[in-house]
């Protein structure tokens, strides 16, 4: 056989490539069990953390589905991790006997109102602090941050006196302004940082493209910022929706209660605390928050201006 070296080399290349594939698969096999063990350990860890985190929520849900009589009997026997009989009676009681709808509406009015004011004020303040040559902008920002960390209970006293003198106690509308204590520092910081990260060139490009200042704001800055504004809005809503301290201090008739405050008085009877009713209400007020968090997740603030500039 007179094969030239070149033609001999050609068929030889095929076995060598399968050979290398074998080496790779062997390497994978040898690595396999240990790899699997690591993964198992990882998922076991995740499971433990999940259980610890979610168990209280499960218990709230479980309790809310018990009937009054089962709740009074307590956990035991057939009434275990899963209640013996699942019933919506606690929910029905909440809305019929206890008129939970009123405090829910009150909470919605206050939280939405507060969110709206927060977004408008924080956007304008944040944009100004990020872009305008304000003397002492740093001092203002530090002060805003400090205000955000100020203990809420220290504010209750003075605000109570203020509301009393203005005759605005036991009224939900002043809460819209008072809740700004929670929301404005956070939202202003968030938006200021976001606006600060929008490249100036973006606005300049729009100006050169023939936009006026206002068009630049409307067609470039605002659309680019929508996710951040959304995030600030959601966080503000959650903070206002969850408030207990201010509501407890400034409201005293059930018709004016916000939801978190109403829940506390729910379970109270002369003889027992009906946690099943409380927990049913807790589930109800958690639903909007859960929905908002799910929406917020899709609009994570980072990476919003991706692609605008050279990465």
């Amino acid at each position, binding site marked *: 056989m007179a094969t030239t070296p070149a033609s001999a080399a050609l068929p030889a290349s095929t076995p060598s490539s399968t050979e290398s594939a074998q080496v790779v698969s062997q390497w994978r096999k040898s690595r396999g069990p240990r790899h699997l063990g690591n993964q198992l350990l990882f998922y076991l860890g995740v499971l433990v953390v999940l259980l610890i985190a979610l168990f209280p929520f499960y218990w709230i849900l479980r309790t809310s589905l018990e009937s009054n009589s089962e709740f009074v009997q307590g956990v035991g026997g057939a009434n275990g991790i899963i209640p013996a009989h699942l019933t919506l009676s606690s929910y029905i009681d909440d809305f019929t006997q206890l008129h939970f709808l009123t405090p829910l509406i009150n909470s919605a009015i206050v939280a939405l109102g507060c969110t709206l004011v927060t977004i408008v004020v924080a956007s304008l303040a944040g944009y100004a602090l990020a872009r305008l040559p304000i003397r002492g902008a740093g001092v203002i920002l530090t002060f805003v941050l400090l205000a955000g960390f100020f203990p809420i209970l220290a504010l209750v006293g003075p605000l109570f006196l203020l509301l009393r003198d203005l005759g605005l106690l036991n009224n939900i509308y002043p809460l819209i302004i008072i809740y700004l204590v929670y929301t404005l520092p956070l939202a202003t910081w968030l938006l200021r940082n976001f606006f600060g990260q929008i490249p100036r060139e973006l606005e*300049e490009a729009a*100006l*050169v493209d023939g936009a006026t200042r206002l068009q630049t704001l409307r067609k470039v800055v605002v659309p680019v910022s929508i996710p951040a504004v959304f995030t600030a809005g959601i966080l503000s809503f959650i903070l206002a929706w969850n408030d207990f301290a201010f509501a407890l201090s400034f409201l005293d008739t059930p018709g004016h209660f916000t939801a978190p405050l109403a829940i506390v008085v729910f379970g109270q009877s002369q003889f027992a605390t009906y946690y099943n009713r409380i927990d049913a209400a807790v589930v109800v007020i958690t639903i909007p928050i859960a929905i908002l968090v799910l929406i917020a997740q899709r609009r994570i603030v980072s990476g919003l*201006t991706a*692609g605008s500039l050279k990465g």
Partner: protein
Amino acid sequence: MATIELDQVTKVYPNKTQAVTQLNLEVADGEFMVLVGPSGCGKTTALRMVAGLEEISGGTIRIGGRVVNDLSPKERDIAMVFQNYALYPHMTVAENIGFSLKLRRLDSVEIKRRVQEAAQTLGLEGMLNVKPASLSGGQRQRVAMGRALVREPAAFLMDEPLSNLDAKLRVQMRAEVSRIQRRLGVATLYVTHDQTEAMTMGDRVAVLAHGTLQQCEPPQILYDHPANLFVAAFIGSPAMNLYEGEVEVAEGQIWLRLGDQRILVPPSQQEARPGLAAYKGRKVAMGIRPEHLAIGHELPDNPSVLHAEIDLLESLGAEIIVHFRIKADHLRPEGAAAEGEDETLPLTIGLGGSDKTAPGVARVDPRVPLKVGESVTLVPDTDHLQLFDLETGAAIYD
């Protein structure tokens, strides 16, 4: 179609920094003018003043003969390409390119036609409906270009548009930008710190340093006849060799003394530089480009040779860059090291004597056998000597 004129334009920032000083510049209709200089020389500030993004502290800017000092960017009818592209992240490529047309309330059919046309010019047809986030750096750069050229503006302003691209893409886009500009024939002011871009793209190149215009000429003239030491050192890579030399008159000829060596100033130079006569017995700055130094032998009929010792050899295939040391007083004016260039040249071994030595660079034929540490004879092409006043830095002519 228009001209851009800067007349005594000055920029002083509120903190009293003088960014641009009495800049005079005229970009003719259809001309590609490159504004080049080291970082912080005021070139971007000058461009931003033309765009209307920066207030003008003094002087006048005219676009198409119209004074635009107090006009907003919108009213100036200019298009600008930013260094970092500044694409609108919430708009698709087509919307990005068509944004300026939409603001001018053109009808959607016309917008679509012009966006298509721009996309075709730039090879962006396939990606009109994607957002900038999913584009590569080069594609983003094209979109930024598209946004400018769809406007059919009176003038193009470009602020280092290629500096964020990788080297290969930059070379490609360099040619492409030049081609598009020539085809559209729109007056263009192009800012860069890269002298290769300046040399290859500009019809004329304006060199700026410390906010002051040093020289504005076509690239070849800038290269062959730098007006001062700064331009001489800034333009050219490897940079021009610059030494301190003394003008001597002996044997009826004019000589330049470098350390213990001397070279003859040829009659052609004496004719071109009548002013040199006034420098007899004085020190001047002498410059010679690396390509005007050959490795050779001492010949009886050529008295102008320099002895040097080879420090380092860099072979580029087509040529060898010879780093040498020579006994002379080194001049290293600011600007000599272009951005990114390594300023630390290898330390010298010395030339035997204790005198100071100066580094230098020659570009020679790769077929000449050379060794590091070897002593060589350099033959300068004295017709291409550059001579500058040491105090003012100005080239010596009249």
